[in-house]
Structures are given as structure tokens and as C-alpha cells.
């Protein structure tokens, strides 16, 4: 436990002095703020148009602006996360290997699991810190809505973002443990996430059991449920087992470093 905390503390310290973390968080906040603004403006315009129509034709307005905004916003967040999170984990192991500090970690009385968990929790914390300011955008809309939209939309949405983020971070850490080169780690992580993403599209062309399997494996499929305010256990299980699988593989990868010529 103490070992996990020691590694966590060091990783967090490194994130806060590393330009990469600032660039990623900065770009993420800039883009998410821009998209939120556009989405909000679009749906307000839509609702006005609907209202005009209803005045003329006497139809009741049927648009729920806050929910639609949130759904679209969480949709955009997922794309931003896909593009930006691989940069948060590219160096976690690759850099240690390159600098030779892996030798320090592996000759310390730390288990591989402690190293892996410490690093993973640190990257997840940074990810959460990166998301935090976006909550203020939604809060801004929330308290001006009448009637207040259901809370579960917001909670499920952020839950989904965190779960998907955690999966990409675990995958990225594992890939980073395979190479000494940060660039290779980023590109491979990006490619892997993209493949998991488009499994969904692949599924739409096929039929039968394969469709279901591919759809289930797609990292974005379960996320969409969360953005609609639905917490589905199959999605929860998917993300949690995804994270556990890649953390386990990272532990094995560190272990195998001892057996290879370092």
C-alpha cells in the first residue's frame, strides 16, 4: 500500500512538472469548451425554431434542450479523449526504460503490481482533474434549466467518461511498457483505441452472432448507454474487465522485463 502511494506521489509530481500534461489538459479544455458552446447554441436555436413552428401549427414543443446538449457533449468528449489520452500514458513506462530508472523500480522492494497500480491511479487522477472543469460548463446550463434535468444523466455521463478513460489509460500503459520509444507507444495506443472504436462500424455490416460480439467489444458501444443516462451492468463489466485485463498484462510485461536482456 505504501509502495503504491510512493509511486503515485512521484507520478503526480512528474505530471505537474511535465509540459506534456499541461499541453494535453490545455488542448482538451479549449476544445471541449468550444464544442460545448457550439452544441448549446445549436440546440437553443433548434428549440426556438420548434417554438416558432408550434406557434404557427399549434404543435407542443418536444425538445429537451439540456438532455440533448449533454448527450451531444458527452459524445464529443469521447472523441477528444480518444485523441488526447494516449499522450498521457505514452511515457509512463517507456520513459522509465529509456532513462534506466526501471532498474531502480525493479530492484526496490516494490511488487510489480504496486508499480502498475501507483502509475495507473496517478494517470486516472490526472484524467479526472482534466475532466473537472468541464463539469462547470454543464453546471452552468443545469441551474438555468427549468425544469431541472435528471441528475442521473450527468452522473451516468461522467461515469461513462471515467470508465472509458480508465480503459484507454490501462491500454496505453500496457503499450508503453512494451517499448522504450514514446512515439511508438503513442501511435500504437492510438491505433489500438481506434480499432476498438470502429469495431462498431464493422459490426453494422455483418449479421448474427458476429455482429453481437463485435458490438459488445466496441469501446464506444457501451459508452453510448451511459450518455443516455443508462447504467448497464454489461457496460460496467466490459470496462472494469478491460481495465483489469490490461493492468494484469502490464504486470506481466514488467515481470518479463526481468527475463529479457535489459
Amino acid at each position, binding site marked *: 500500500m*505504501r*509502495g503504491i*502511494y*510512493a*509511486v503515485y*506521489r*512521484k507520478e503526480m*509530481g*512528474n505530471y505537474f*512538472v*511535465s509540459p506534456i500534461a499541461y499541453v494535453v489538459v490545455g488542448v482538451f479544455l479549449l476544445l471541449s469548451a468550444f464544442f460545448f458552446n457550439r452544441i448549446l447554441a445549436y440546440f437553443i436555436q433548434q428549440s426556438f425554431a420548434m417554438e416558432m413552428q408550434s406557434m404557427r401549427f399549434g404543435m407542443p414543443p418536444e425538445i429537451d434542450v439540456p438532455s440533448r446538449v449533454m448527450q451531444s457533449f458527452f459524445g464529443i468528449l469521447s472523441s477528444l479523449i480518444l485523441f488526447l489520452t494516449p499522450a498521457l500514458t505514452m511515457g509512463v513506462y517507456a520513459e522509465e526504460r529509456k*532513462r*534506466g*530508472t*526501471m*532498474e*531502480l*523500480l*525493479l*530492484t*526496490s*522492494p*516494490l*511488487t510489480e503490481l504496486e508499480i502498475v497500480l501507483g502509475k495507473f491511479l496517478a494517470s486516472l487522477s490526472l484524467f479526472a482533474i482534466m475532466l473537472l472543469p468541464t463539469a462547470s460548463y454543464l453546471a452552468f446550463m443545469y441551474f438555468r434549466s427549468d425544469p431541472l434535468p435528471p441528475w442521473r444523466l450527468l452522473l451516468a455521463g461522467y461515469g461513462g467518461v471515467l470508465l472509458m478513460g480508465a480503459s484507454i489509460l490501462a491500454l496505453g500503459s500496457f503499450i508503453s511498457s512494451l517499448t522504450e520509444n514514446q512515439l511508438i507507444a503513442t501511435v500504437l495506443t492510438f491505433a489500438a483505441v481506434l480499432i476498438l472504436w470502429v469495431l462498431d462500424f464493422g459490426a453494422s455490416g455483418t449479421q448474427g452472432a458476429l455482429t453481437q460480439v463485435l458490438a459488445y467489444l466496441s469501446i464506444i458501444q457501451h459508452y453510448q448507454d451511459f450518455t443516455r443516462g443508462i447504467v448497464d451492468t454489461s457496460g460496467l463489466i466490459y470496462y472494469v474487465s478491460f481495465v483489469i485485463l490490461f493492468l494484469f498484462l502490464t504486470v506481466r510485461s514488467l515481470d518479463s522485463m*526481468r*527475463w529479457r*536482456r*535489459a
Partner: protein
Amino acid sequence: MIEVQDLTKAYGSVTAVDHVSFTVNKGEILGFLGPNGAGKTTTMRILTGFMPATGGTARVAGFDVFADSLEVRRRIGYLPENPPLYPEMTVESYLDFVARIKGVPPERRADRITDALQKAGLADKRNELIKRLSRGYKQRVGLAQALVHDPDVIILDEPTVGLDPKQIIEVRHLIKSLAGTHTIILSTHILPEVSMTCDRVVIINKGKIAAVDTPQNLTSRLKGGQRIRVEAQAPEKPLQEALAQISGANRVQTEAASGGHIIATIESAPGQDLRSQIAARIVEKGWPLYELRGVSLSLEEIFLELTTDDAAHAQPAA
């Protein structure tokens, strides 16, 4: 404190460490001497639990380095060949991190860090970023890192590499001062370093141990084949003949140098100092003598000597 028995490490078809056995007693400084690629680093990495051996056993403080790796790692301070540093950390925060991962209890941490800083001569660099330090200071941070948890065993891989002569002397003093309370293994490819700091020496070459002995014994063994270099202005053939006639001179080699000088190398039998006889002979012949000195053996020659020596011992037994 450290017992190594038939330790073997093979990388595919290459055997980096080949049935190495030695022991280190508590409080002793053991020197690992050998050329680059001899297997020093590999042996140290196995002892520190960084990599497993292919065969044989190694025990540190009674714990097997493979089966009880965590217990061994708790008791070892290790400075790898390249100090494992985080450039963007300050010296103090780095040592704090190392103290934490090595399991130093919170109440002792501050004292241990101050002590390590002091021993490594870093007290005034406490708050400096590691990336701003010179090569020598980085090496010292690496050394401080190996001391910070006050380990029973300290393993140093080429601790004086990259230091200037003054720093080298300081580091040697530091290492000597650590003996007694700590058991130390250090590796080097510099011969005088071993004789200055170590109680015992393991000479390792091509993964095999060539000799284990005290520096004093080793030096006298090596004196066995003494060599003398002579530079004189003389005709080559008569010079060689004259020198070869001296009793005790085993082999005389000559080569021409500039200005009509001849350089002769004389190998003598063990324990004999032929220098005065050589000088007398050359003066007797009336040749001007320019230089006369004993030649110390290079590390490669020592290995050659030790290995051929062993072969010579082995033959009569067989």
C-alpha cells in the same frame, strides 16, 4: 553475507556469467575487476534481483535472490552503471521518493535523507534540479540513492566512472568509511581502484572467475612475471644477445626506435629484479642508456597471465 554458488546466466547462446562462485563476509568490501563485457554488471543485476539467473544460487543475508526477492531487495542499495535519476526532480524529492519505495519508515525518512546527502557531499545541492547537475554530482546523487535506506549490502557498478580525480578520491574514501557496517560489492575496470579500496578481489573475465584473492596477494602473484623496458643506443643484435645472457632473463624482444635507439623488453623470472644487472651490462658495453623502467601489466595481460597460470597449474595435476 553474500553467498554465490555456481551462478550462471545465459542470453540465448551467449553465456555472460559462467558458474561463478564466491562469498562476501559481513562488513567486507569486495571488488569485481574485469574488462567491459566480463559479466560484472550481469552478476550484480542478478544479486539485486533485477534479473533471474539461468542456473546456480545466490543468497544475500540468507535470502535467496530469486525466491525471496523482496527481502533481498529490502536489504540492498544498488547504484547501476548509469545512475537511475529523474532529471525533473530535485535532489531532495528524488531521495524522498527512493526512501519511500525502499520502505524507510516516515519518522526516519528526514534523518536518512540528510545523512545520505551529507555522506555523498550533496548538502548544498539539496534543492537543485537533478538535470542541472554536472555528471559528477549526478553520480553522487546515484550514490546517495543507494545509501538512503541504510542497507546492509551496497552494490556499486563502476561508482567512479565519470568523476574527476578529486571526486574519485572522495568517493573511495566514502566507500571505505562505509565498510564494517555495510557489506559492499563494487565493480571496476581500474586496477589501482581495487587495491586502494577493496579487502578482496574477484577477477572475472568472459563470465568466468580468474582469481579470488586479497589485493596484496594478487599483486605479488602478478609481480611473478616482471617486465623491464630498456631504451639504449646500440646495435640491435648485440644488444639482444647481451641482455639474453643475463641470468634470469627469460625472453628479450627488441625493436628499433627513432634516432638509432633500440627498445628492448625483458621478461624476468618471478621475484627477481634485474634492473641493476641490466644497467651494469649496458654500461659495461659502452652503450648510452636512455631509459630503464619496470613495466606494469595491463588489465588484459593480467587476465592472460592468470588464465595461462591456471592452465599451467592444471596440467601437472591431470
